[in-house]
Each structure stands twice: as C-alpha cells, then as structure tokens.
C-alpha cells in the first residue's frame, strides 16, 4: 500500500469576497500520476499555489511527507521536495538555459556549480534541450520554454512535481513530447500532479483524476469514470 505523500484537508482560500477554494480535500500517494481538471477559474492554479506555498490558505491543513507545511514559505517547501512549473512559463530570462537550472540546483539541492552543471546537462539532455544550454532563456520557443519549466523543476530533485498546463497551446506532436517527458519522470519515481485542459492527455496520463468547479471538488475517480460523470460534463459544457 503506497504511502500518502500529500494530504490536503479542507483547504479554503478567499480573495476579498471571492471564494477561490472551498473545503478542498484530496490525497495523493507516492509515485502516483494524478490529474486535476476543471473549467477556467475553477481554482486549479489557486490550489497549486496553496500547495507550493505562493499563497497561504486561510483554513485547512496541508501535509506533505507527514509534515504539516501550511505555515512554511514557498522556498522551504521546495526544499522539502515540492516542485512546480508555471502555467505561463516564468524563466529567468536574463540567464541562460543552463543557469536557470543552476538556481534550484544551488538553492534547493545545495550543489556547487561544478556538480550542478553536470547534473543540469543530464536533465537537459533527457528533455532534448542540451543544444540550447547556453542560449538565453528569452530566446526559446514556446515548447522549449515549457520544457525548460519542467527541466528547472527537475533540477530541484523533487518528490512531487506539479505540472500546471504544460501543454496548453502546443501542437499535437509537441503535446506528445511533453507527455513522454512526464511519463519518464514518473518512471523515475516522481509523483506527478498534472493540470491540463487537453483531455486526451489527462486521460492517457492519470491514474486518478479530480475535477474542480468554482472552488469545490465535484468528482473524483478514474479517468474513465470522470469522463462519464454528469457533473463534470455540466461544468465544462454548461447546464
């Protein structure tokens, strides 16, 4: 029986009068491939921000690796093993691709630059970005930026990787490239939460899926059962 790596219990988050998340609870086992879906504005990124620490939830608990992390700042959570990519890529644009990976390498894993570079190059090779190592991050194409987001997250040696719409706006073969990367990472033992709108990707990738709507979980189950669920269909297509 796999250990529960992440436990989110009754997490709520408000912005002024707007309830972004209401009593959200979920559990993720180590090594799991977990899908998070929901229409725009349903609170997916807010939930991710609460888990990774960029936002503080007002109520509820977040337990990671048996440790309560709700009060920790984001940079400490990353050192515990949580990594995330950003929906709109946020590279360190004045740095090269390699240097981008050296940041988590130095600040999360505490490697010296010489070791960090070797490890970073391996990661870049695995993503097909090795030839762009010295290129400025600001010069990359969209799909390369998405890969950089994932590569940078990988450089932090995470136990949990949250991929926030890494495939949005990509062409078919590009989606497959990124999906393969995520499968490979999971095969290396990394637990992955995937947020995506591209249904076929979520269905192929996830072992379990949760659907959010208006800040609440409306359905949880296998990809097959989620697709058939009436509430989920309503949330996406309207009543």
């Amino acid at each position, binding site marked *: 029986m796999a250990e529960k790596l992440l436990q989110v219990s009754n997490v709520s988050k408000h*912005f*002024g009068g707007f309830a972004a998340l209401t009593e959200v609870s979920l559990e993720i086992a180590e090594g799991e491939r977990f899908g998070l879906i929901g229409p725009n504005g349903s609170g997916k990124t807010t939930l991710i921000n609460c888990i990774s620490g960029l936002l503080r939830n007002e109520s509820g608990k977040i337990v990671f690796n048996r440790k309560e992390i709700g009060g920790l700042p984001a940079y400490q959570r990353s050192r515990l093993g949580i990594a995330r990519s950003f929906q709109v890529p946020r590279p360190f*644009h004045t740095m090269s691709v390699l240097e981008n990976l050296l940041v988590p390498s130095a600040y999360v894993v505490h490697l010296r630059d010489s070791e960090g570079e070797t490890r970073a190059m391996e990661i870049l090779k695995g993503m097909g970005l090795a030839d762009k190592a010295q290129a400025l991050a*600001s010069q990359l194409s969209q799909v390369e930026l998405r890969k950089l987001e994932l590569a940078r997250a990988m450089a932090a040696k995470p136990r949990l990787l949250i991929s926030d719409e890494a495939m949005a706006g990509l062409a078919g073969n590009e989606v497959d490239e990124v999906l393969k990367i995520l499968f490979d990472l999971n095969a290396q033992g990394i637990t992955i939460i995937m947020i995506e709108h591209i249904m076929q990707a979520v269905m192929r990738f996830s072992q379990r899926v949760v659907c959010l709507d208006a800040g609440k979980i409306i359905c949880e189950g296998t990809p097959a059962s989620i697709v058939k669920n009436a509430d989920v269909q309503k949330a996406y297509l309207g009543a």
Partner: protein
Amino acid sequence: MIFSFDLLFEAVLFGVLLGCFYAAVSIGLSVSFGLLDVPNVAHPAVMIVGSYFTYVLCSYGFDPIVAGVVLMPVFFVLGVLLYRFYYESFEKRGTEAGVRGLAFFFGIAFILEIALILGFGVDQRSVQAEYIGSSWELGEYRIPYRMLVAFGVALVLTASLTLYLSKTFTGRAIKAVAQDEPALRLMGANPVRIKQWAFGIATGVSALAGAMVIIIGPVEPAMDRIFIGRTFCVVVLAGLGSMTGTLGAGLILGISESIVLMFFGASWAPAVAFGLLLIVLGIRPQGLFGR
C-alpha cells in the same frame, strides 16, 4: 502644547475639510495606480503643474476653479499620451516593466519639478479669489471659505467618479480591466484603449485637484514630494481599487494631520502622511477597504 477640547474639535473640523481635499487629490491616483496598476509616482508632480497652470490662467483673470475645469480636457489628452507612451515603452515589453517603469515616472516627476523651478523660480505662488482669505463664522469657529470650496469640489469629484465607474459602460469596463483583462478582451473591448481612457480621466482630474491645491494655499515646485506621501497614503490606506474608500482614508489622514498641526506644530505635520503610510504598509498593506 496646549490641549483643550475646543481646540480638538476645531482641529477635527478642519481635518474633515482637509481630508476631503486629500481624497479628491488622491482619487486620480486611485484610478491610475489602484485600478490600472501603473506605478505613477509622477501623479503629484502633474497635479502641481496643474496648480501652476491655474496660476497662469488666473493672472489672465480666470477664477481658479474655472481655470481648473478648463485645464481638465487638456490634462486628459496629456494623460492619454503619457499612458500610451508608458504602455509602448514598458508595459508591452512586460518583463522589466517594474524597475524601468518606476524609474521612468520618477524621471518625469523630477523633470517636471525642475522645469517648474526653471520657469517660475523656487518662490511660492498663490492665487486670488473672493473666497480666498475670508472665513465663514460658525459660532466660535472660523472656517476658511477656501477650505469649503475645496471640500465641495472634492465631494463632487469623488461622487461623480464613483458614479461614473459603477453606472456607465466605460466606467464598468475600467473596473473590469482591473480585475480580469482576458475576460474583457473576450467581450470585444480593447483593454489598452480603456486603460488609456482611464489614465486620461485620472490625469484630467489631477488638473482640477491642482487648482484646489493652489486655492487652499501657496504652491512651490517641490510640493509634489509631500503630496507623494499624502496621495499614496490615502490610496494604500483605502486599499487599491476602492473609490469610496479613498474618501474614508482621506478623512483619516486629514484629521490626523490636522490634529498634529494643531498640537505639535507645522514642522511635524508633513511627516504624518508618510508615517501613516509606513504603518499601513507594515501592518495591513491591503488597506481598509480594498480588493
């Protein structure tokens, strides 16, 4: 320091009038910074330029308030141009907008201040009008007419801007662009043009605010610095994006400053705004009423 409840009441009374004046002066910034997120530290400097233009028009015989109103459309256009410029140079490029945008507006404020010194010298300038110099006697208290004028104009400004933002289509579009730009785009409205329009309004309002500044008292080129403190104090205390909050925050500042002025003297009063601002930033940066 002599304390009496009479003096306190007078200070509060004066403070209410002063507070409404501060609210009116800050409302332009509430739009440009509070709603549009433009780091417009040059807002007070533009306002003081408005004061000086009012002075010039008054020397041709205009009444100060009329001068302020006349200047509003001129400043509206200037605001539109300034925003356009800012947008093309910084916001569009996105990434380093923060540092460079701030440096840009700081540079503009500095240039305006120096230009005023070169044009008018460092001496104070003031205007004359029937209501400047005389007071309304209310029992034991004398309320200077010019404060009442500023109070009246302030209320009218705040009320009309609040109504505009909530009742008209453009007004609501402006509030929408602050909250959800992509949604606005989907509705077919052009966010850049709306922001441009809003910034123009904010700047136009500054012209009238500038007229009031010189009605209340003499102006000098460096005054924009103290007004940076006052306007940002009001906008931050109110909470970004809240128009009615601006009135409440203005009152808090006005009364605090008036009390300090009454009991501690004029040399300490200018620090009140900045002190209050620092306290708010330290304790409750989202302000009292904001989003």
